[in-house]
Every structure is written in C-alpha cells, then in structure tokens.
C-alpha cells in the first residue's frame, strides 16, 4: 500500500528536536543508521513528517530520498501523525472474514479520513492494523487502550460518539 503523507502542519517542540539530535549523534557512525534513527524518531514524534526526515538526512549526511525510501518500505513507519484518539481496526484474517472491512468503512465515513490518516483537528486517526491476537473477539478495534470486540457496523456511531463529546 502506498504511504499516505500528512498535510497537517508540523508542530514539533524544541525538546523533541533536542532528543532527535541525540539519537542522530548516537547512531551517526553506525553502518545502516537510517533504520534505527527512523525507529527512535518515530517514538519521539509519533510519525515521520518531512521536517523530521530532513533533520535525519542532514544529520546522517544521506539524501532525503534515501530516508524516505526506507520510511515507505517498512509498514512500521507512519508518515501521518496519530490523533488524540487513535482508532485501530484489526484487519487480520479472523477479523477480516467477520466483516472488519465494513467496520473500517463506516469509521472512514463518519470521520472523513481514510486508513493511515488523521483528522485536520488532530482528534482522530485511523489505522488498519494486522492481527492483534484477539481473534476470539473478531471483529475487533481499539481506541487508544480501549478494546471493542464482536462488533457490528451499527455499534460504530455510538462508540465514536463517546470520544467526540
């Protein structure tokens, strides 16, 4: 799947930048430093926007395109921020055959965003994730740490309403 690129303005803090610089300094002389730096940078920022990737490219003296290429190759990296509430819909085999596709469709409809996107106000993001190991509850979704199982499409409006208040 092609990675979605966020259009939400970047608002990294000075602390985050200082942390990123530390991370870069720590890995600068390692061969293949791009991978670990991207991993740790994502822990700091939650995602890897162009501003962060530029700092990594400059810091490691590699082309920005190389950093971007790695960040779009691996599914663990995200180019869009996570919202205040991150909704993960499991698309593992069990959830999928039990109708997770319809669940994610409905959420998409309500929030006006696709998978791997974040609403413009930063409140909600939507992730299509792989098996989370709760196949007995299929289809299953999580909103941050809250888990919702045995879902029907009709349940979705009510669940989201709780977080919209």
């Amino acid at each position, binding site marked *: 799947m092609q990675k979605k690129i966020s259009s939400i303005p970047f608002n990294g803090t000075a602390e985050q930048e200082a942390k990123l610089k530390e991370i870069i300094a720590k890995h600068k002389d390692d061969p293949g430093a791009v991978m670990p730096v991207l991993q740790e940078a994502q822990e700091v920022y939650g995602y890897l926007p*162009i501003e962060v990737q530029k700092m990594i490219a400059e810091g490691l003296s590699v*082309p920005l395109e190389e950093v971007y*290429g790695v960040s*779009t190759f691996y599914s663990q990296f995200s180019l869009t921020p996570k919202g205040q509430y991150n909704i993960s819909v499991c698309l593992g085999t069990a959830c999928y055959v039990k109708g997770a596709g319809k669940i994610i469709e409905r959420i998409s409809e309500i929030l006006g965003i696709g998978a791997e996107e974040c609403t413009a106000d930063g409140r909600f993001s939507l992730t299509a994730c792989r098996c989370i190991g709760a196949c007995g509850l299929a289809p299953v979704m999580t909103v941050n740490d809250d888990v919702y199982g045995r879902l029907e499409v009709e349940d979705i409006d009510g669940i989201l309403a709780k977080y919209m208040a």
Partner: protein
Amino acid sequence: MEMINIKINGMPFSVEKNTTILEACKQFGIKIPTLCFLKDINEIGACRMCVCEVKGARSLVAACVYPIDREGTEIFTNTKKVQESRKTTLELILSNHDRKCLSCPRSGSCELQEMCADFGIDNENRFEGARPHYENDESTLYLVRNNNKCVLCRRCVAACKEQFVGVIGANNRGFDTEIGCAFEQKLADVACVSCGQCTAVCPTGALVEKDDTDKVFDAINDPDKIVIVHTAPAIRATLGECFGMPIGSNVKGKMVTALKRLGFDKVFDTDFGADLTIMEEANEFIGRVKNGGVLPMITSCSPGWIKFCEHYYPDLLPNLSSCKSPQQMTGAIIKSYYAEKENIDPDNIVVVSVMPCTAKKFEIKRDDQGRNGLADIDISITTRELAKMIKSAGIQFTELPDSEFDPTLGVTTGAAAIFGATGGVMEAALRTAADTLTGEDLKEIEYPDVRGTKGIKEAEYDVAGLKVKVAVASGLKNAAEILDKVRSGEADYQFIEIMCCPGGCVNGGGQPIQPAQVRNFTDLKALRAKALYDEDKNLPLRKSHESPVVKKLYEEYLGEPGSHKAHELLHTTYVARKKY
C-alpha cells in the same frame, strides 16, 4: 594474479580468480542478458535476467554478481532451465509495463525491446500485472519521467547517487514500488542538478530528455527567422554513434553538412565560445592571483556542476568563475556583435545550440543569462535530439560529404576542441595563461597530467615563476571530494576544473545512448575523448588566444578580456538554492 580452470557450457577456459560469470562469459564471446547491472555503480543482482546454472549450486545464480572462486567451476548459460527462467522473468517484467513501443522515444534503442526480440517473446500479455497508471513528471525543463515504462532496475537511482545528488530512489514496496522523489515531490522541486545521467543509463523510455526538436523545426520553417545553430566540442565525437559508426569517430564534417541540409541559416562552432571563455577565464584567473581575489577559482562551463554548487555548496559560489559557459557566450556574441555586423535585428535571430547535455536546457532559461529580455540561446537540444532530426529529415548521415563551419564564428583552435573531455578546459586555460604571463609563444603546450579519465587529477605547474596548483574533477562525487578539501582548508589549489558528468562532456547526459552491454565492457569516455585530443593535435592553431575570430572580436568589439563590454555580455552571477 591467480588463474583458475573452469568450464562454460562444457568448454574449458581459464580465468582470473573472482572474475564474475558475466565478465568471464564476455571474455569468451557469450552474451549474458542484463537489465539492472551497471559496472561499479549498480551491481545489485536484482533483475534476474542474467541467471545461469552452476553445477552444485542450489538454485540459479545471478551471473553479474557471482564471482568464480573455485577451481573446476562448471557453468551453464544456455540450458532449458536457464532459458525458461529468463523468459518468464522478462514476461513478468512486461506484465507491469505499458508496452507502447510504437510511440516510445526509446523505440529502437530500448534494452527491454531488444531483449524481447532476442528471447522471441510471442505473447506480451502472458501475465497480467497490476499495471497502475502513473502521470508523467514533466515538471523540469530538461527531462521527462514516465514510470509506466519503468522496470525498477534502479540504474537511474545508482547514477544519481554516484553524482552525490540522490534525489530519486525507490519508494513504497511490492506493486506500489515507484522510482521518484521524497514525499512525492516533482523533480523540479527537489535539488536535481539536471545532469541527465539518469537518462543516459535508463534501459527503457522511463527517463528521457525533454524533446525540443519540434521547436527547432518550427523556427526553421518560419520565413521571418534567421536560425543559427552551433555545436558543442563534444558533439562531433559522439554523433556518429547514433548512425552506427564506431565509438570515437570524429564526424565534424558530416555533422556540419547535415545541419546545413536541415535548413539552418548559419552553422557555427561552440568551440568559438570555448576559445572566448578561455580568454575571459584566463584573464580572470590571472587577475584573481595578482589582486588577491577569491581562490581557488573554479571553472563554470558545466551547468550541471553550477546547479550542484548552488544547491549543495552555496558557500563556495564566490569561487566560481564569473564567465558564462561557451554555449551562452556564443549566443550572446551572435545576438550582439554578429547581429550588428550583419545588420540583423537580434529579435529575428533564433539561436539553437546542440549540446551533449540536458542541463543546458536549464541553463538557457536562467534569470542571470541573456540581457534586455533577449535570451542568449533560444533552444538547446541534445546530441540525441539532433540525431532524431537528421533521421526524420531522411538525411543519410554516413554517406554525407564533409563541409566546414561558417567561418564568421567557426574558425577555432585545438584548445577549444578538448573542452569536451575532462581536463580540457584546464589545459586550454593553462596554454593561454602561460603565454600571457611569459609574454612568449610557448612551444610546450601539452599538459598530460590533467588528461585521462581518472575522476580526480592534480598537478603543480611553474607558470612564468608563478606556482600554480591545479585540480581537475569530473563526476560530482569526485567534485564533492575536492570541494570538501577546499571547505576545510586542507587543499591549497589555485585553479580547479569541475565537470558535472564523469569523464566530462563526452559522457554527458545528452549523449548517444550506449546500452549497458556496451557501457559495461567499454571505456566510452576514453574512446570519445581520444577523438577530441586527435582533433587538437591536427589543428593548425592550438591556443585560444591565437584564434583569428577571437582576436578580431576583441579588436572590433570587446576591447580586451575583462572589459566593461565583455562583462556585460560574457559574465554572469549565481544564486544559492535550497538543498531540500
């Protein structure tokens, strides 16, 4: 050198240990098909077109990256298994290709097309791939990317990285993999230097120069326009390749005839502009040395190099010579001195340049070129585009008689001829600077230390008591190495020549395409450069300041090198550009 005995298809051979199967087969007259392999820069064994059987190996091996390191290795290059595997790979590549050969600019020079013919592909639809549609990237003035034709060989990515630019790469994965720029930016929005090396190595029509030949035909067909063409030093050394002539043929005479038959009103030589560049540049250099100007001075003929410096080393812009490139100087003189002399309104002149270069298409549109709204050059086409024009006009190039450039701006020197090879500008400048400083007509005019295709060359000369330490770099990776030393203060050169493309203009991004099967086993740069050094040797005049055309130009019009008028017409400025 340790030799080992091997067998290829049952025949005994002896090869140097660790020779790859690909190289060994080449030595013994067996062609192994390759798509991704480019010697030294893209040895990734990814495309699987070159697979062979090795006795004892678990599976087929990639010939391009398989070193033969065992005595008695038995290799099979042509078994049914090998043939079937290669053909299936090819059919799978085609499954995700747009297969619009008839309208493809690379039809006839496409490595994929040739391979299909070699393998007797009889059904290009055997597998139906995802075939997503990609919009062309036509954002730049100089090249077009069409990812519908891309086979993901990554040769362009390697060439770009080799240039220390690296603005293109493989993004996403699986069927979504696409060669492009970071964050889906267009090529015009990233720090691409416009060198076009990617177009020279692309096996298909995924990356091609922006075709400006229609504009040239339109100008020629406009009865109100006087269309003047001039050709860069490196064109005569390569154009013949487009017509099946051997690499390194100097086709100056045929080229001039072809241009006249195409209908250009005047055919001039950019070598004139090269001689003029030397006059201005040698004068500028001597001035900087005597007056404590910024040193080292770095040459400014190569627009890909200029753009590289502006994006990646903006702090070194003051080191660049302020001289325009020979292309621009020639255009500026045509639209001023020549127009006045011939009593032509410069607005009615269309100047077309034939260049070995895609970056020249960018250079002609720079804000800091031309004057009073009048562009120095109106259209710049590559060697490949000229060949295309000649073919479409039905001109039988190889059968043409020779003719001479129009003498007004067409009598040139050997110093200008060698501009097309790395080290040539340096040598030409040294010839003139040495004569100027000694006030003599020196007989020792060859500078072998700065010749040859090595990426970096250094030398120290005693020029009339003045110690001059020079460096010559071609290919931006080598340029970066030199520039880093200048930045850190480690280097104490006075004069540096930098050419964007490895080997200089003879290997420019607009030069005839030679397939990887040739590039991997031939020293293109050296063969083409030899044609220029031979031309230099055989010309009666070999120093720029001896050119009668240049002398007359200064007497009648410019005064002396570095004069106010010369500055107005022949010098320029640069601008720092963003890296991301």
